[in-house]
């Protein structure tokens, strides 16, 4: 009981207060310490939640308004890992960023405030059992991060931010349409206005919804949250926003903000899966394949490292979508891929941020490994891990869907797509990592923490790859709970 109310009241409250404090206190040493403590507490809390869900305990409060099952807890865990990494990474990176773009150092208080609010909204979204609140929170993450994307204030950043905001807001509208359709149908049939709100209730009544309506509604939901998740052909905002945001924000966007969209889609699919017909599966597969091919092919001639990673995100979201076309094992794999991809993509973005910090640019680089061996090496390993090479945990989730497919032609297409992605991304990063030293002025003045954090993230996946039992267990619980 205490845990439940702490999870639902104290933790968000703490974050809200932290957000306000960081805006009021202003940027300084004190703020850094406060934030680190709060985020550390959050991480610890999320580990506790994950542990509880591993034990099979589902928390709920306020008449099931808030509910933490395995899917929620794994998403919270992911987002908290990313959050604390981004926070600590930001300490130095944002100072560099601010000085690069000529902004006020003091204004960073706003940055941390918004960062905290973003994490708060993500947290609320994950614990929410209410379909409408879910939508509200997804929209809220868009709003806060849109501001963070444009934090640099230069033309490219503003363009990216505008595109992001406009497309996401417009797209999410359709998700609300879909949600309302399902709600009104259940309401109309049962006469009870509360049966169509909570996911647990919807799951109970989903069978009574008339198939055409359900398909229409689920397509609209998929389309709405698909924009947020960056599924092709709704991904247009994604490369711009990722590449123009400050690196910690790119990491955040790529992992948990797109993750929000994927989470919402998964949440809905899990609820709707008993009633879904082949149309939805076909659409998921088509969208999945489109994303995989479009995202991965776009990487081929790309020179900007962050944009490559952005396109890679599109492809990986496609993998999630494709996996979720094969319930129930596909859902587990999709959740697992959401976790793996978030962690690894975040680490890749942070490493690229290191490069940017070091060389002042993020394209046309080469010979990093002879200049900064650890950085170059971890960059390479991170990319390989991201592309699903064992023994990193992404291997299970990238090649896992093959077990579910059982159709040779689909398997072949999928493999071709994954291979294209592998070739494209490794080619660019190999070009970056290997080679002789460049004659660029390097900025050696960045702390070890900026390097250690991404390495820790990679190590997490390595450990989970070598000993995948806990991850498999949690994700396996995700689709049943």
């Amino acid at each position, binding site marked *: 009981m205490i845990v439940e109310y702490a999870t639902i009241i104290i933790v968000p409250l703490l974050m809200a207060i932290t957000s306000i404090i960081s805006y009021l206190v202003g940027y300084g040493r004190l703020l850094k310490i406060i934030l680190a403590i709060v985020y550390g507490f959050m991480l610890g809390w999320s580990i506790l939640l994950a542990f509880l869900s591993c034990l099979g305990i589902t928390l709920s409060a306020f008449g099931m308004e808030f509910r933490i099952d395995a899917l929620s807890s794994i998403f919270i865990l992911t987002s908290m890992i990313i959050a604390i990494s981004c926070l600590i990474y930001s300490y130095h990176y944002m100072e560099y960023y601010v000085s690069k773009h000529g902004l006020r150092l003091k204004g960073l208080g706003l940055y941390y405030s918004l960062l905290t609010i973003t994490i708060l909204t993500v947290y609320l979204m994950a614990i929410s059992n209410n379909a*409408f609140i879910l939508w509200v929170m997804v929209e809220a993450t868009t709003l806060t991060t849109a501001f963070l994307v444009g934090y640099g204030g230069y033309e490219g950043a*503003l*363009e990216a*931010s*505008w595109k992001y905001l*406009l497309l996401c807001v417009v797209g999410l509208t359709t998700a609300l349409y879909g949600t309302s359709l399902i709600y*009104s149908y259940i309401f109309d049939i049962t006469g009870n*206005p509360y049966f169509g709100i909570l996911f647990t209730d919807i799951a109970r009544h989903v069978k009574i919804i008339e198939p055409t309506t359900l398909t229409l509604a689920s397509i609209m939901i998929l389309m709405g949250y698909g924009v947020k998740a960056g599924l092709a052909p709704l991904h247009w905002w994604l490369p711009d926003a990722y*590449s123009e945001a400050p690196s910690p924000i790119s990491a955040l966007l790529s992992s948990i903000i797109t993750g929000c969209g994927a989470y919402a889609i998964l949440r809905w699919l899990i609820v709707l899966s008993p009633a879904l017909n082949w149309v939805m599966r076909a659409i998921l597969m088509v969208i999945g394949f489109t994303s995989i091919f479009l995202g991965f092919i776009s990487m081929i001639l790309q020179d900007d490292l962050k944009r490559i990673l952005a396109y890679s995100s599109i492809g990986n979201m496609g993998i999630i979508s494709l996996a979720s076309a094969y319930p129930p094992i596909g859902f587990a794999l999709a959740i697992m891929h959401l976790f793996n991809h978030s962690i690894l993509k975040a680490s890749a973005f942070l490493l690229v941020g290191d490069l940017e910090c070091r060389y002042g640019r993020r394209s046309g680089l080469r010979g990093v490994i002879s200049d900064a061996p650890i950085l170059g090496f971890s960059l390479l390993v991170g990319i390989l891990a991201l592309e699903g090479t064992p023994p990193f945990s992404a291997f299970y989730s990238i090649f896992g869907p093959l077990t579910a497919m059982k159709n040779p032609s689909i398997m072949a297409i999928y493999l071709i797509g994954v291979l294209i992605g592998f070739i494209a991304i490794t080619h660019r990063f190999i070009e970056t990592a290997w080679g002789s030293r460049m004659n660029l002025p390097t900025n050696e003045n960045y702390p070890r923490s900026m390097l250690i954090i991404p390495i820790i993230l990679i190590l997490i996946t390595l450990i989970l790859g070598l000993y995948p039992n806990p991850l498999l267990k949690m994700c396996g619980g995700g689709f049943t709970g």
Partner: protein
Amino acid sequence: MRHLNNIPDLSGFGGVSVQVENVVIPLASCMLVTAFFIVESRRLRTSAYSYIAQSSLLVGVFLSIASLIPEPHFYIWAITAAITKVLIVPWLVLRTIAKLGVEFEEKPVIPTIPSYIADFSLMILGFWFGFNLPLPILKPGFRICFGTSLTLMFLGIYGMTGKSCAIKQTICLCHLENGIHLLLATLAYATPITVEIGILTDAVLAIAIMLYLSTLIKRVSGSLSTYRLSSLRW
């Protein structure tokens, strides 16, 4: 547990649809007219004023529904909508327009006459969808509301497509939000108030951030045109 104890008695709601229809159809048609002005007016202020008018009409729809059915929280909807959509959002928009000192919108992407044609065809399309979508739950009266909301939504998105001015696009977004509210009133009128408030807050926040971004765009690139923002390449 709160929900389960307070199930309102809505059993007669289907029966009052004819009355609702009588009230809602004029209001909805008026909303369409304002929608046209919002999207097509070259003067930003005109758009903003049309938006106020449309929001007022929306509040009217809420109020009429609230008065016709025993549903108390529709009054709260109406009040919150009135506060945010009639007061706060227009105020923000108008203030930004005044601050930036722009009178007319940037040159639109789609020229005037094709734009008008697009508007009307989208209206027809919206209503066609409203009446033809295979949604067995919709009563005839609500089909008009549904069609209107779809039309508002289409026009809002169309406005963002066809216009290049950042503020105009923001106003179109507000317009889109109106469409959403009409939809919620049509389909999900029984949802708890928290949902409604959340959605409204989001809308206001979105608009505030967009307006702030548009001032930044104006400051950085010298114009409000988002069509010309293309520094990012593949």
